[in-house]
């Protein structure tokens, strides 16, 4: 007859296993949970020489900046939202179209080659991508030099604040549109071929296959990614924008994350910038959870239930 073992026995039995996991647990606690506590400085007038504990409490004073219409904050918020929605509108559909295009290629070899080329930019750092854009499209770059020599139309996209959104959007497309196809191609590759065969037997051409089989097959993935994107509307490419604030100017390029950096770490306004960061994090989490709920209401699987299914 087996006797249920006590907690203490289990702990003794598993102590070596737990020891293996200990470094990871400590790192997660130290670098994920301890900074969470550090957010108390959002409620304090943080003075570096006093430290976090000794700095005086100021209640919600730091959060006033969110509501009193500080022009720099309002500018950062509106830039963030504009950039987010421009990118959802212009960047989001491109990998879908590209995946359908690649999927329709008949030759497996050409498909592989195209994939290897288009995935590569994803692995480049933002510093590299920004450097490439400057040296290719800058005023003294490859294209404009060539255009000047051949009396062709010149493109001054870099350093023009009015074109800043166009610039960063095209950089995002260049870097990640190819990589974005991978998840759609994976979804397409799991489609039961009998569905395509039935369409073909019923006399449907390639457009019918696309409309009745391929697109419905990737719809859950499209919705899932859209949810994640909507949950992320307050976060836009921080490193990318940070690198290009010089030439573009703050008016056009300040977003919430760079605002926190410029105000907090450069400007020394620790309390208010921590407050902005905290509210941004909370709103972001609420957005993801809310978008997931909405997806469930529309009968899609969303993020969490799909995680359950795969277990």
């Amino acid at each position, binding site marked *: 007859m087996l006797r249920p073992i006590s907690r203490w026995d289990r702990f003794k039995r598993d102590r070596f*296993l737990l020891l293996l996991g200990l470094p*990871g*647990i400590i790192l*997660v606690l130290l670098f994920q949970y*301890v900074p969470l506590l550090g957010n108390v400085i959002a409620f304090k007038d943080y003075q570096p020489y006093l430290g976090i504990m000794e700095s005086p409490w100021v209640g919600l004073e730091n959060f006033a900046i969110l509501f009193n219409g500080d022009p720099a904050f309002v500018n950062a918020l509106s830039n963030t939202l504009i950039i987010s929605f421009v990118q959802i509108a212009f960047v989001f559909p491109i990998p879908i179209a590209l995946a359908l295009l690649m999927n329709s290629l008949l030759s497996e070899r050409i498909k592989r080659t195209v994939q290897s080329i288009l995935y*590569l930019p994803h*692995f480049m750092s933002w510093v590299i991508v920004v*450097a490439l854009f400057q040296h290719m499209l800058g005023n003294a*770059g490859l294209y404009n030099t060539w255009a000047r020599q051949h009396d062709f139309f010149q493109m001054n996209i870099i350093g023009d604040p009015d074109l800043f959104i166009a610039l960063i959007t095209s950089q995002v497309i260049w870097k990640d549109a190819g990589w974005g196809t991978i998840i759609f191609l994976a979804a397409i590759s799991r489609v039961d071929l009998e569905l395509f065969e039935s369409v073909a037997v019923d006399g449907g051409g390639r457009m019918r296959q696309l409309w009745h089989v391929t697109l419905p097959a990737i719809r859950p993935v499209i919705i899932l990614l859209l949810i994640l994107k909507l949950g992320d509307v307050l976060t836009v490419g921080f490193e990318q924008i940070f690198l290009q604030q010089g030439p573009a100017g703050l008016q056009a390029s300040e977003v919430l994350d760079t605002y926190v950096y410029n105000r907090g770490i450069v400007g020394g306004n620790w309390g208010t910038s921590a407050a902005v960061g905290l509210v941004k*994090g909370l709103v972001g989490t609420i957005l993801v959870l809310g978008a997931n709920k909405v997806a469930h209401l529309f009968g899609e699987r969303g993020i969490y239930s799909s995680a359950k299914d795969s277990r």
Partner: protein
Amino acid sequence: MAGIRPDTALKPPTNGRRRKGPPAKLLPGVSRQQRLQAINGATPPSLALRGVKGIVLFLCCAVVIIPFLAVISTSLADQAQINQAGGYVLWPDNPSFHAYEAIFRGGVVTRATLVSIGITVVGSGLSVTVVALLAYSLSRPGTWGSKPILLLVLFTMLFNAGMIPNYLLIRQLGLIDSYWALILPTLTSAFQIIIMRAFFLETPQEIIDAARIDGASELRILLSIVLPLSKAVVAVIALFNAVTYWNAFFNAVLYINSTEKWPLQLVLRTYVVDNTAIGVDLPGDVVPPQQTLQMAILVVSLIPICLVYPLLQKHFAKGVVIGAVKG
């Protein structure tokens, strides 16, 4: 997946696309690829459509390749050709490694390259070790405390403490201007722990029990049984982390003050993005033009990624990557 039923089977293609060997009789065991070819053969795209697709994909590939080609070519070009082209060339007439000799003469770039290599090797090695150990300890059913620990890890996917508290923590720990500030904060990732745990869970419990009866320790079971069975996922996570550490840029902006500790990405920003003039002293030699030097630094930062890229790519097809992609 169920075998192919004869009533849904297609006739073999008849438009000259017939493959060699036995006619496609659609036996069970016909590969997915062959079935796709049959479907494509039965519903061929129009010539115009194929032309348009070809042009679009060719342009996409050209847009990606041309910048890389121009960068590499310019880094190898000589003064005369640079002057004639006005800055950048698409093909070097007299390729020379002059610029590379100049930047690797022991100055800023040499040091930064070594720093970046060190951080990448130590960081990706440590991170895959820590993640594998934690994932393993969470993957054995019924382990003491594994459920709360798993929740602890999962919960970190929902929030991010923010830049300011992270910075203050690093400062509190005394890690400002230390290489550890670039390595430690990004060692663990909830996503990777979950993915690796999922793979470890696939290991048949019978093998593990057998090893245990033979007296193997937990570490031994992990090293000799579980890890070899999950090689692919371990390799992918290690490679991804290596790329992430090599590319890491902003943490260095935040935490590294002294220029002699700069990783390559910061050097790249200063000299190639912000166009700060690069001083080199080549005794008794002509200093290569600025563009050539800049492009040479850029190429140096590209090389490691291009080296691991084929390895990474090997795993794309297996679908491992989908889950392992860092947000």
